[in-house]
Structure formats: C-alpha cells, structure tokens
C-alpha cells in the first residue's frame, strides 16, 4: 500500500550563534507497508519514529530537507498528493492527548474530522456519532470537553477521528503511552481490527512488548536508521531468528524474557499482564 524508498530527513539547528548545521534524523529508510497488516516501528525515543510519521503525512516543517521517495498505491506520494490525501486516505493518531482541542466538545471535533474527510456536514454529524459509539464512548462523553475524559477515553476519541475518515493507511503514534493494561489492550485491539478490515496500520511505539501481540511485521529503528525488519514471529526464544545484534539485545532485554518460547503466546492469551513496567 505504502512504499518508502531510501528516505532521508535532515533538520537544521544552530550549532553556534551564527552557524546553521543539519542533523540527520532519518537515514536511507526503505520499507513496504502492506494492506491488512499491522506494522510496528519500534525504537527508543529520538530514533526518528515520529518524524517518519510526519514525513509520510507531509507535516514536516518547510525547513526540513527530505530526500528519497514515497509511493502510495504505486503512485508517487508528493507534497500535492499528500495534501489531497491527508485526512481522506492517510490518517494520523497523534501521540499527544493535547491534540484534542480543549475548547470544543468531543462530538463536534469528530464531526469536523469527518467533514475534513469530505463528508457533507449533516452526514458528518451522523458518522461522528457512529464512530464514537463504535468505540464505546457514551452520549455524555460525546458532549464532554477533552479534559473531562480519562486518558483511555481520549485515546479512543483520537482513534475514532482516524476511523471516521475511512482512511486506508493509519499511523498510530505511541497510542499506548500512559494507559493501564486494560485500556491499552482495548486501544491495541481496535488497531488490530482496523488492519483486519483491510487497512494498513503503522504502529509507532518504543515498547516492543506491547507491539508484538498485534503486529504482523516489526521494524526496529535506531538513530534514524533501519536496523532490521522481521515478522513478529521472529521475536521468540533466544531471538536467534533475528539477524541484528541490536534487535536481539532489545528482545532479550525485555524483563519477562525467560528464554521460554511460549512467552508471547502466553501474553496474548491472558489479558492480565504479568509485567507492568
């Protein structure tokens, strides 16, 4: 669905009072994302994951220096096409809960998202309500302001906003941060459902543990470079199926990793998690 071809991103900064320098945030990144899959992009903070999301959406600051190419459904995805597809074909579930406007009621914000996706205003009202109902947000929550919602509810509102647009490619940026296990699983399950509907979901997270149960593919990022892309099933046992030392180390560093091949399966079966880091 989306193909990234040798994408590099540089951002300017001021090395001293008058010298402008460029720092490389993403380097020669190439990756295909297919429909119907959850593709997890995992890396420590500062690895360039969020910037990757912004590069795909075309939301980088104008000063950013971008090379390489993006293809969406085999057509080059340039500035103009990004502008056209944003909110319609491409959706972003942002990392920060501050992305909800504190002065606008939830239902209205979701309706705006629907309008921006091209729905006429009366239909947008309706589909907003439907989307919010779908994510189990009751009438009271729909009429609430953002600060009146819990973290989990706010996450689901953001997911509903991506859902209402009927976008085919959904990028979820750290959707599980700050959620308790129950809420986290709900949000992750919602993403899995979106993928099962034939959409392509890019799950950006720093936490390999939470990504594995729902991901089909996992890409490990480090310092803006792509370390390894493997299927989720490669992350088991001693990690011998992984080719790169960093991803192996990342895998082995997990606190619940007791070298048993059943760890992930077990984790998937019991909603109550053994480890709350």
């Amino acid at each position, binding site marked *: 669905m989306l193909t990234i071809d040798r994408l590099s991103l540089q951002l300017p900064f001021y090395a001293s009072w008058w010298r402008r320098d460029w720092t490389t945030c993403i380097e020669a990144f190439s990756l295909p994302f297919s429909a119907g899959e959850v593709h997890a992009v995992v890396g420590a903070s500062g690895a360039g994951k969020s910037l990757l999301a912004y590069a795909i959406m075309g939301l980088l600051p104008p000063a950013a220096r971008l090379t390489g190419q993006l293809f969406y459904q085999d057509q080059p995805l340039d500035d103009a096409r990004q502008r056209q597809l944003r909110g319609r074909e491409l959706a972003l579930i942002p990392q920060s809960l501050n992305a909800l406007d504190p002065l606008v009621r939830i239902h209205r914000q979701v309706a*705006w998202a629907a309008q921006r996706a091209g729905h006429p205003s009366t239909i947008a009202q309706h589909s907003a309500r439907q989307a919010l109902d779908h994510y189990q947000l009751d009438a009271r929550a729909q009429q609430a*302001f953002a600060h009146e919602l819990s973290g989990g509810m706010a996450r689901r509102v953001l997911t509903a906003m991506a859902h209402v647009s009927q976008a085919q490619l959904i990028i979820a940026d750290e959707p599980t941060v700050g959620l308790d296990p129950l809420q986290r699983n709900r949000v992750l399950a919602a993403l899995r459902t979106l993928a099962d509907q034939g959409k392509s979901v890019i799950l950006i997270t720093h936490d390999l543990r939470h990504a594995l149960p729902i991901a089909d593919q996992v890409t490990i990022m480090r310092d803006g470079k792509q370390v390894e892309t493997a299927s989720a099933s490669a992350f088991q046992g001693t990690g011998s199926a992984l080719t790169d030392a960093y991803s192996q180390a990342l895998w082995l560093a997990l606190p619940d990793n007791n070298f048993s091949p059943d760890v992930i399966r077990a984790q998937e079966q019991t909603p109550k998690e053994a480890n709350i880091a």
Partner: protein
Amino acid sequence: MDVRLITLLIAKRLLRLTLVLLCVALVSFGLMMASPIDPIDAYLGPQMAQVSPEQRTLIAQRWGFDEPPAVQFGHWLRQLVSGDLGWSHVYNQPVSEVIGQRFQRSIALLGGAWLLSALLGFGLGLVAGAKEGSALDRVISTYAYITASTPAFWLAILAVLLFSVTLGWTPTCCAGPTGTLSQEVTLATRLHHLILPVTTLALLGVANITLHTRTRMLELMRSDVATHAFAQGASRMEVAWRHGLRHASLPAITLAFASLGELFGGSILIEQVFAYPGLGQATVAAGLRSDIPLLLGIALFTALFVSVGNTIADTLYGIIDPRIKAGEP
C-alpha cells in the same frame, strides 16, 4: 458551573474591587497632602494676593486644612460616601457635575475607539497569526510594532497636520464649532468632530491587541491541536477559523477590558491635542491649576472605571473557559 458559584466568584471580586478603590483613595489623598502646593493658594487662584493672613486662617478652618491629615482624610471619605466629591474651583461647579458632563463627552470617544481597536486588532492579529511569515503578516506586524512605539500625542499631531491643516477634511478643534451652544450642535457635526480623535485613539490601541492575538495564533498554529487538524487535511485558514477563533477570542476580550487604563491615558493626550472638552482635558486643567478636589475625584472615578474593567477581565475566564469551570470544586 452553577449560579451560586458564579455569584460567589463575583462577590469576591467586588470585595476586592472595594478594597482596591479604598487604597486608591488613600494613595491619591496621601499624594495630594504631600504636594508642596499650598491648598489655600490653589483655592484662591489669582486672588491670592488680595487675601490677608487672618482671612487665610479662616479659609483653612472652613475647609479643614489646619487639621491633621488623618482627620482630613476621614472627613473627605465621609463626604465621598455621601456622594459629595467637593467643589471644583477651576470650573466653579461641584466635582461630580464636572465629571458627569465631561465623561458624557469622553464616553463617545472612548467607546468608539475601544470597539474599533478591539475589533480591528483582533481581526488583524487573527489574519497575521494564521498566515505567519506571509507578506500580509509582515505588513501587519510591522504596523503593530511601530504603533506600539508611537507617542500618542505625536500621532494626533500628525493627524491634525495631515487631515485638518493640509487636507482640511476635519475640524482642528473641540467637540463642535466654536461659539455655538452645545444643544444646537447636530449629530452630524458632532460625529465630524469626533472622527479624527476616535480614529487616532483606535489606531494606537490596535497594536496591543493585534500583537497579543497574533502571538496566541502562533502558539495555536504550532500546537498539537493544529498539527492534528492539518493531519486531517485542514487548511491553515480552516484551522484559524475553527480552532483559532476560539483560542484567541477570550484572551483578546480580556485584554480589551484590561487595557481600559491605557485607553484612558491615551484619551487624555488625544483630547489635549484636539482640544476636545472631555474628561481628559479636565484632568490636565485640574492638575495644572491645582484643583485638588477635581483631581482626586477624577483619580477615583477613573480607578473605578479601570478596575471594573480589570475585574471583568479576571472574571471572564472563570465563567467562560470550560477548563476552569471543571477546575472549580
């Protein structure tokens, strides 16, 4: 938020307001007492030389000038509460009448300039902030920065030079043609005399609100809310219209109420240049000719005017902003 909480909030503000006004009375009375200008000389004016020392003591006794300051203050405060602000020797009228008449004329100037500057400033700030870095933004920002540094009276002088002296479009002076009674002046003439002062005062007030609104808009445009909206395919103008309007309007209204003092200060200067017979001009006359009761009365009156504005500004947030509503227990 329920009505009881709002009432409580307003009651608290009103109490504070009263306290502040009392302080203003104390401070301005103290300043008057500290003045080296002899109140008896000031009262007598040019007749000073015709009065014997015995008569002076009589005057001092009559007006209580010989009593200690604290007693005088108590006396003045008691009069104040009963509504008597004293006698203005410059206008030979009770102070309350002078203030009433003058304020009626000033309110047209103040109100017009206030509305105009708030609306214009907000609009300009919104546009500039939404289109940050564009040519339009640069023009608006430059204009705002320059007017923020412009001396009010100089702008008024320039306006008189250009529109009244050179072009002859507007009259140079006063609230109506000289020599006619104020009752005979038509509304059109009044407006004709008002238009230049109002515009000048408004142009000066615009800068503040424009820059403030623009800053708010820039904050919003860089916030997560805007990024999220852009990710949904919104254009800059749409974000400005839907999110920006909400985020910037409350601060702008607040600022408009909070800047009444500055507006009034500007009106003193403008009235002086245009010889507009309003409260500002009376203030200058009272100060220059040592009309202490009038000066005190005006200080208190404007303090009331300004602190009511400040109180409204403070209270608005508590009542309107949904985030604060929930924050109250």
